[in-house]
């Protein structure tokens, strides 16, 4: 049941991010709601679920839009793993939590992406990326993370999606 719920949420997100969200671009930048969702799930459910959700979501994204299969999968998995392993020490009630972690993970995402692209012989000036993409996307992701965290967190009150009791 939990699996089905996550599956439906991630599929809806995939479809919305590749279609409807394209019409809400600001400065030609689209928010990465997949990353935000992976972060939110790992905050709530820890590293195992966080990492596996990240891996699958990344793989699907790579298959549909990626230049190389595996790039996003690897990055999402690592982010889910790192944030998920901090799960037990995160204060979940605070609405600043998702903002902080989504900001951090957006930077990590682009850093890792840049690293992989450099190895794959894609020369892109880092400062240009930072100025044109990262700084705007960070803000955009942070705004979205508040809303998404609220929705998912209220869903966890539901019987089937309950977060682990401590």
């Amino acid at each position, binding site marked *: 049941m939990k699996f089905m719920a996550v599956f439906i949420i991630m599929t809806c997100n995939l479809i919305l*991010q590749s279609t409807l969200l394209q019409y809400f671009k600001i400065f030609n930048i689209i928010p990465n709601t997949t990353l935000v969702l992976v972060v939110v799930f790992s905050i709530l459910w820890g590293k195992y679920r966080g990492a596996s959700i990240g891996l699958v979501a990344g793989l699907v994204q790579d298959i549909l839009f990626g230049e190389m299969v595996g790039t996003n999968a690897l990055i999402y998995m690592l982010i889910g793993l790192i944030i998920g392993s901090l799960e037990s020490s995160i204060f979940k009630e605070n609405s600043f939590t998702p903002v902080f972690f989504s900001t951090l993970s957006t930077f990590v995402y682009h850093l890792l992406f840049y690293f*992989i692209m450099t190895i794959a012989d894609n020369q892109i000036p880092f400062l240009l990326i930072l100025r044109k993409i990262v700084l705007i996307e960070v803000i955009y992701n942070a705004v979205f993370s508040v809303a998404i965290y609220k929705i998912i967190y209220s869903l966890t009150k539901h019987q089937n999606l309950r977060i682990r009791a401590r």
Partner: protein
Amino acid sequence: MGKFMKRGLAMIVIIITIILIILMGITIGGRTRISTPENIIGKVITPIQRFFFKGGQMVEGSFRSIFAFRSISEENEQLKKELEELNKEVISLQLQNNDLEELRDLREALRYIEENSIDNYLTASVTGKDMGNWFNMFIINAGENHGVVKDSTVMNGDGLVGKVYETAGNWSKVLSIIDNKSSVSFEILRNDQYVGVVKGSVNSNLTGYLIDPEAEVLVGDKLITTGLSVYPKGILVGSVKEVTKKEDELLKTIIVEPSVNFRRLNKVFVIIPDKID
């Protein structure tokens, strides 16, 4: 137990990471055939995407027409003027065309080798666009089953859009020319002696350079493809927006405004290459 789990997790993560890196190595640069599971995922997702993409377009279109009332009437005036000018042009071109027709007959009589013309193409719809900000990839709902192959040219009524990056059964990924992986060789429509290369970049504009530093290139010059790269000759790429010549560089750099509006891309043509037996 806890320690064992920890070690087990680390092992699993390392193994998955290695598998993913190998996958990246295999798939770098795009493949001619996509594996079956990928094909199935695309097959399921693309029709749904198409529905939402179209929905978004309709909503955007109706919003635009509400807010852009004034600019539409202005545009109307402008278009009327343009139409008048174009009508004049058509007449003069018609006269030239008659001459050309005569020359073509002459060419046939002299048995010249025919130049390839674009006649074999199909129309496809965009179903979804790249979810990240680094690249400019999108999906179209035509694939191998329709005859699309890797590196087929994709264009629309306005000009060059890109090329097919990977194809599956019923869908394909298209790499647009504003992607930073793409480069197009062009010539200037006014004078086909001036050739150069334009590349896309992260901030989705086209920058390029001319091979001849002495070439006279003006703002507003139209660029067309040369036919030297994967793209066939004579497709409009864009118009020159800015020309800069740096002292310490031999090349003349230009910034190009693409003729296609990539934000409002809906229908595209895919040029199917002739089969070579």
